[in-house]
């Protein structure tokens, strides 16, 4: 009898102890889990090394060994410290401090033992670490009409990832603006432009794609692209567009604009010219 109740008591005790341990550990796990979830949001200034997947995947793939850090010849990469807002121990860089120099042999990817940095990335031009955005169009010197061009000049993919687009300078009325324009299909997000920007705060910054880019609704179709792909109009057949032009005039689509039918000179912008021509230059 006594034996049985003692056994009962010890079983009871075992169950209570187990429950105690389990709930303690579960509580602890909840804390760790919440903390881990919170660390999943990467700050916009932190850029992952080339070949890193989406943040969620990367945090499951990178074991924080730092081998990529060691093999980066430019000391671009560093492992996050516990107090930094990047998941502890994971590699990242800040473009404004040290950008990625886009090594041709991509030693960081080669060093990664786990494949957290994707081994399929063999051409560094295909890396997509982020996307440069000329964020501050008020202070960018080129927007002010000066010829700084530094971001353009330093870009390893100059004229592909970033181009200078001439625009009319409305302020002076007689100069051009050379606007740096980043092209997402070529920009690797290396951050050399952000690093080189001469302003105290860079006007051009590399942002994670999710911040840098908008996204069309899934159901959106861009008409002219669809038409090009289909090789013809997908809706009603195109009617040839016709201008309501005065007798004897036609419109040249190749850039000459309005001109007299058959003539090879365009209709002059300045009305005085045509008046003068009509009068044959006579007073």
């Amino acid at each position, binding site marked *: 009898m006594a034996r049985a109740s003692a056994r009962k008591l010890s079983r009871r005790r075992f169950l209570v102890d187990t429950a105690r341990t389990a709930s303690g*550990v579960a509580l602890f*796990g909840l804390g*760790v*889990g919440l903390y881990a979830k919170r660390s999943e949001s990467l700050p916009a200034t932190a850029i992952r090394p080339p070949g890193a997947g989406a943040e969620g995947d990367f*945090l*499951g*793939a990178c*074991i924080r060994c730092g081998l990529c850090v060691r093999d980066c010849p430019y000391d671009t990469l560093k492992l996050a410290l516990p107090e930094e807002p990047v998941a502890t121990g994971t590699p990242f860089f800040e473009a404004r401090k040290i950008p990625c120099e886009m090594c041709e042999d991509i030693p960081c990817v080669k060093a990664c033992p786990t494949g957290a940095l994707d081994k399929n990335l063999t051409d560094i031009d295909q890396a997509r670490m982020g996307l440069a955005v000329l964020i501050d169009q008020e202070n960018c010197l080129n927007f002010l009409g000066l010829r700084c061009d530094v971001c353009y000049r330093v870009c390893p993919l100059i004229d592909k990832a970033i181009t200078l687009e001439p625009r009319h300078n409305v302020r002076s009325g007689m100069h051009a603006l050379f606007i740096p324009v980043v092209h997402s299909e070529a920009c690797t997000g290396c951050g050399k432009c952000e690093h080189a920007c001469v302003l105290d705060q860079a006007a051009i910054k590399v942002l994670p794609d999710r911040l840098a880019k908008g996204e069309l609704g899934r159901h959106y179709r861009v008409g002219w692209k669809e038409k090009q792909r289909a090789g013809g109009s997908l809706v009603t057949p195109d009617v040839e567009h016709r201008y309501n032009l005065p007798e004897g005039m036609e419109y040249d689509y190749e850039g000459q604009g309005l001109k007299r039918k058959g003539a090879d000179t365009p209709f002059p912008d300045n009305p005085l010219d045509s008046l003068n021509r009509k009068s044959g230059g006579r007073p």
Partner: protein
Amino acid sequence: MSPLHPGREAVLAKGWWRAHKWLLLRRTSQFGILALFLAGPWFGWWIVKGNLASSLTLDVLPLTDPYVLLQSFLAGHAVAATAILGAAIVTVFYLLVGGRVYCSWVCPLNLVTDAAAWLRRRLNIKGSARMSRQTRYWVLGLTFLLALLTGTLAWEMVNPVSMFHRGLIFGLGFAWAIILGVFLFDLFVLRQGWCGHVCPVGAFYGLLTVPSLVRVSAAQREKCDDCMDCFAVCPEPQVIRPALKGAEQGIGPVIRSPQCTNCGRCIDVCALDVFRFATRFHSATKPHIRVAQNKEVSS
């Protein structure tokens, strides 16, 4: 009686060096491994790169922590071959020498918890919270569950073991506070708290210990004079009793518990040389005589 100065008799009987042999070897191993990792960043001698999570030695030998890799696998990552090879090498190594050799011969946090244990003995701090030593297996399961549920290495965000080693090599930051926390926890809250109750890394390597080859054996247990020194210094004292006192129940002299760290401190502090390293297949040579002697002692 839990002696304030365990091992004093051993020093008298065997001399200081022999009474600290395994401790010294162990410290040499711990600091030596740390030195190998630090030689690169400090002096530019890149013998070993990386950290305990994964490293590359002499540019050829990849070594990867199987525990962290398992978490990554559970998080859903298709792990690359190099890491798998590295983890296989490490696993085989620990299967031979004992999984928790990681704890006592490699892990840098062990230096901290050993220091806490030493100070605790010195200051004669008695009070201790109550926590099951099985808690670590729950925590181990939890870390795997977290990886599975969050798809990230959630545990590695807070793991003091990897944080400390990585910190020493790549910069500590505020990780020192967490390490200090572990030290104080062990010193004031729970005796052998971290390594003996909570740490899932130790628990994982303990699982590798289960089938491992090299074990400590109480080979001459019949000589034991119950001085209790081994119990005082052992980081997992509960593992000793079955092997040391189990002769009558027919339990072999080999310490089989997966919690034994193969630190060898019991070998050091025993003035009568009861313990020694052996293989798991070791059994006392003359069981009958031993049993008889044991009876004499206990009567």
